[in-house]
């Protein structure tokens, strides 16, 4: 992101777009500068993951997100993709700003954002909505246990039990979603013991685990008509206090659920010069649950097409993904070209169809791809132009 004037509340929103698998874009002189990070916990060393506690919020860290993506099918065969995400962004570490006497219930040091997008494959429609709120009164927040993350009436909750039963609820004008989910496996720690390093800078890392395959069942209402839906979902939970380095401009994130029961996740961090950053990484989990980290040089990514939004933001669309070490050769194709969230900042997060071979045998499945950092470069650096660019 080019150096830009700090803007508010738009600047906050910019910082809040913290998609899975990577850290937020840095604002070199802004709120995310080094000073801002002071006082927050850093993701480094080791962390003894414990569940269900670690599903809850990690307040000493600056940012955190809970990320559901998935594929659903209605009884008539109609297919849907969905994304429900909650972001927590702290302005200051807990305890750093003593509450004034007679403090208002509106006092807060955290802001929450939530996104809900639906890809209606048959209807060729993609609809998204955003919610934003301070973590005050009962407007937004995260608590655990039991887990509850919410903004207004959108919520993610988890019921104690073995296995944990997750519930996701969100609605927008045309679609409303209510899902019950159960993980088919234990949490998968990405990176090294869950530490996902994002750049060479000390502390530029986050704690990151996934539930790469959950069964989902529930109701998707379309224009007021409820549809019983079932399918699979992917859950990511990540927290940290660092930002992208100034050399990095964005990332491409891939999460595939293959029909043979294996899952593949890889994030490619992009440098300003367009090259892939060496800290890009991924995780492969086979059908038996064996976890294999993927280094950047193990994964070949080749865009096979592109899509340009109505106002000229150009995204790659379609990829050839090869992992020679796993004999994996997959083509990923968006189920719908326009799955761009025109939020702040803009990003593309969409359902893809996966087709190819694994070990020479045909392999296929579904996936989600997230493309971040393509839109911002188009914004002028200052003046009202930038404002319009970030606001819309």
């Amino acid at each position, binding site marked *: 992101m080019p150096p830009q*004037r*700090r*803007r*508010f*509340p*738009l*600047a*906050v929103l910019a910082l809040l777009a913290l998609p899975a698998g990577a850290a937020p874009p840095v604002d070199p002189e802004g*709120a995310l500068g080094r000073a*801002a990070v002071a006082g927050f916990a850093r993701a480094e060393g080791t962390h003894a993951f414990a569940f269900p506690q670690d599903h809850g919020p990690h307040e000493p860290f600056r940012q955190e997100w809970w990320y559901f993506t998935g594929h659903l099918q209605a009884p008539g065969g109609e297919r849907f993709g969905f994304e429900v995400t909650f972001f927590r962004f702290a*302005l*200051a570490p807990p305890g750093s*700003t003593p509450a*004034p006497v*007679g*403090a*208002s*219930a*509106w*006092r*807060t*040091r955290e*802001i929450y954002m939530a996104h809900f997008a639906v890809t209606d494959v048959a209807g060729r429609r993609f609809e998204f*909505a955003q*919610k*934003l*709120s*301070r973590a*005050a*009164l*009962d*407007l937004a927040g995260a608590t655990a246990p039991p887990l509850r993350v919410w903004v*207004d*009436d959108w919520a993610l909750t988890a019921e104690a039990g073995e296995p944990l039963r997750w519930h996701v609820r969100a*609605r*927008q*004008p*045309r679609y*409303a979603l209510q899902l019950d989910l159960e993980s088919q496996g234990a949490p998968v720690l990405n990176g090294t013991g869950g530490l996902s390093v994002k750049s060479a800078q000390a502390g530029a890392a986050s704690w990151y685990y996934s539930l790469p395959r959950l069964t989902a069942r529930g109701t998707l209402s379309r*224009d*007021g008509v409820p549809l019983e839906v079932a399918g699979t979902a992917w859950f990511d939970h990540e927290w940290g206090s660092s930002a992208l380095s100034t050399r990095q401009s964005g990332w491409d994130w891939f999460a595939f659920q293959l029909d043979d029961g294996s899952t593949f996740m890889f994030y490619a961090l992009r440098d300003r010069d367009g090259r892939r950053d060496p800290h890009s990484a991924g995780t492969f989990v086979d059908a038996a649950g064996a976890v294999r980290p993927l280094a950047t040089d193990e994964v070949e990514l080749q865009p096979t097409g592109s899509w340009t939004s109505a106002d000229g933001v150009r995204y790659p669309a379609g990829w050839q993904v090869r992992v020679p070490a796993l004999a994996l050769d997959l083509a990923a194709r968006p189920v719908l070209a326009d799955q761009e969230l025109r939020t702040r900042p803009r990003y593309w997060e969409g359902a893809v169809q996966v087709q190819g071979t694994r070990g020479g045998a045909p392999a296929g499945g579904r996936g989600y791809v997230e493309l971040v950092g393509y839109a911002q470069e188009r914004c002028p650096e200052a003046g009202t132009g930038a*404002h319009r660019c970030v*606001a*819309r």
Partner: protein
Amino acid sequence: MRRTLRAAALRHLWRHPAQLALALLGLSLGVGTIVAVDIATASAERAFQLSLQAVNGAATHQLSAGPGGLDEQLYVRLRRAPLAPGHAAVPLAPLVLGYATLGERTLELIGIDPIASAGMSAGTAAADGLAGGADPRDWFLRPGAVVLPAAAAAQLHLARGAEFGLAIGGVRRSAYLAGIVDGAAWLDGVVLTDIAQAQEWLGAAGRLSRIDVRVPAGEAGRVALARLRALLPPAVEVHETRAQARETFAMTDAFTTNLKAMSLLALLVGTFLIYGAVSFAVLQRRTIIGVLRALGVTRAEVLRLVLGEALLLGLVGAACGGLLGLLIGRALLGLVSQTINDLYFVVAVSQVAVPATTLLKAIAVGLVTALAAALVPALEVSGATPQLGLARSVLEQRAQQVARRFVVAGVLFAALAAVLVGASGHSLLAGFAALFLLLLGVAAVTPAVLRVLALAGARVLARASAVGRLALLDVAGSLSRTGVAVAALGMALTAMIGVAVMVASFRESLREWLLQSMHADVYVSAPAPSGNIARRLDPEVVRRLLATPGVRAHSEARHAVVGSTRGPIALNALRLVPGSDGAFRLTEGEAGHAWAAFREGSILISEPLGWRLGLHPGQSLTLLTGDGARDFAIAGVYREYGNDRGEILMDLAAYRRHWHDAEIGGLGLYLSPGVSAGEIIPRLRAAAGTGQALLIRSNAEIRALSMSIFERTFIITRVLYWLAAGVAAIGLVSALLAWELERARQLALLRTLGVTPGGTALLILAQTVFMGLVALLAAVPAGILTALVLTQVINRRAFGWQIDLHLSVPQFSNALWLALAAAVAAALYPAWRSAHAPLARGLREE
């Protein structure tokens, strides 16, 4: 031929520049005053609308409740509720509003949730404003963080990052300037802060002043509103934002109507001036026009010529008037916004708005005025038989006939005015129409009065001084000149006297009312505009104040604005000290019964409220209490000048029962015998401590303050009437100047007959002074009549209060000085000229 005509006309105007300039000045002043008032009121209204848009411009509706505001949990509930069909998001934005004093200035303190406000209206001030540079960490976390508009920051010499003091509800607070907002559409008078900070500063934890809502257009919006209403507790009201804004600004209707009427008066006086100038221009050319007519120029051509001149004059006058209006408007704007701030609501006007219609209006008004004024002389000159032209004698003869007819017309006007007042009920406009009819009536009668008095004077002087007699006969004989000038001056003087008497009467009534209504010796209140939730006294401070030795008894007051089926109404809840009922003079309702009912929970209403809503004892008024709508019986109507929208008086205990608001906004302290306000006030201040800077004032101080606010609100009236008087004075000067110059030959003849230069000068002066005095003489009774209309009709209809007429000599002094000054000014140049002009030239003139 037409070209010849036009050339003759233009050359004539060109050769009489002074006359042209005075006519233009008169018209410009008249048009300018109208434009100025238009600009000043439009700017105030524009600023007011901007102030609403600045916060959540896209909001369609507002939720509000009584004095205590809304419970913030309501906002949380609404955020979670599926309000719109298909569950589209219905943006909601909470607000906590109050006032902050920064140095000498009172600014509106607006507490917002920037995230909610940006969701409500991206691109409006709240969202844009914060883009002005506040670091979100400062905004949310730093105690005292505020954002100021650039204009205010510059005025206060505050740079970003500055720490400074603010007084809120009398308590000094430390603020930090986290950002500065610039942009022309922004308001000058606002301090923005986070909603949490605003709640803390205003002591309003848990409460919201307002929730702004944006519902979609059409059916979806109706459904959303219905769902919203179903979720609201009974005490919460839903208002359409635009209607609310209109209603709020409509509070100033009576005030702005007054202003417009006054500006019209200036124009009316200006009309006489144009009439004088055009008829003079016509008269001077009577010979040439007679010749032209004899040469075959048609009646229509002459008419066109004269009206064409008037049109040109009107256009130029309108253009000059427009420019002048811009200048006067700027000056007036300060006065208008000061008055609005004093009487209605806080509005900061930093921009001059010139509505497109204003300039069109200026041109139209200029043209119509000029044409109307020129019509009579034009018809006259075109209708005359060619040969006679308009021989002076013929004209003067006609003028005398006209003057007689005018007397009849004047009496008719006055009668019509009386009928209008009687028949029009509450209409303020009809009241002003009657006032104008009255003024026109005065103007119509004046020429005849002038003639009668001049002839009578001449008869008296006949033996004493031949020259004096000559002078007065001359005045009577040149009625076409002198009559118009004196009529214009008479009208202006009438208006002046009327206003002076009205203001003085009002002042006297107010003084009496203040004396009567302030029973307590010392009054304590929190410094915030009334009706705001911030206006509350700290209970601990109250306890300490009441424990101060020397305080014998006390009354308690809570001021609030409550909703009703008739719109928001100011409510004054009082716990009276026994025996102080007399502070309220009941004008309707029997006192014994009214006060008994009051203590039982009935309400009393002030005169303006009763007048505005047409309410009387025995009726009831539905108020929105904390438990929903409830009817309150009206036990009486009392005299009150404090609030021109009127107010309700309620027993404090009843108010607390219905609104669940235990706060106190003010105290009235009764002192023990022998204790003076002067000695106890320092002790009270000490007892109050430094926590809350209270307003602790003796009743004498409050009376003085009320009187000074009163004087301030009438400054603008005075300014406008002086403008009208100025136009009239210029009219007199220009008409008399023209007349005297016209008589150069006659004066020269007098000189050859042995009258000294000083003698002719004296003659001229005597004539103008005589005319000035006649104008004054006509204006005195007419002015008193006007004052009666102003107090008993206009003020009653505009505000509902009754004012007793008080007359005293000083009320007439300004009019006297103006009459004399105009007379002397009119005499100066002709006198100098007649004294110095070579006799031969004067004799040759004709």
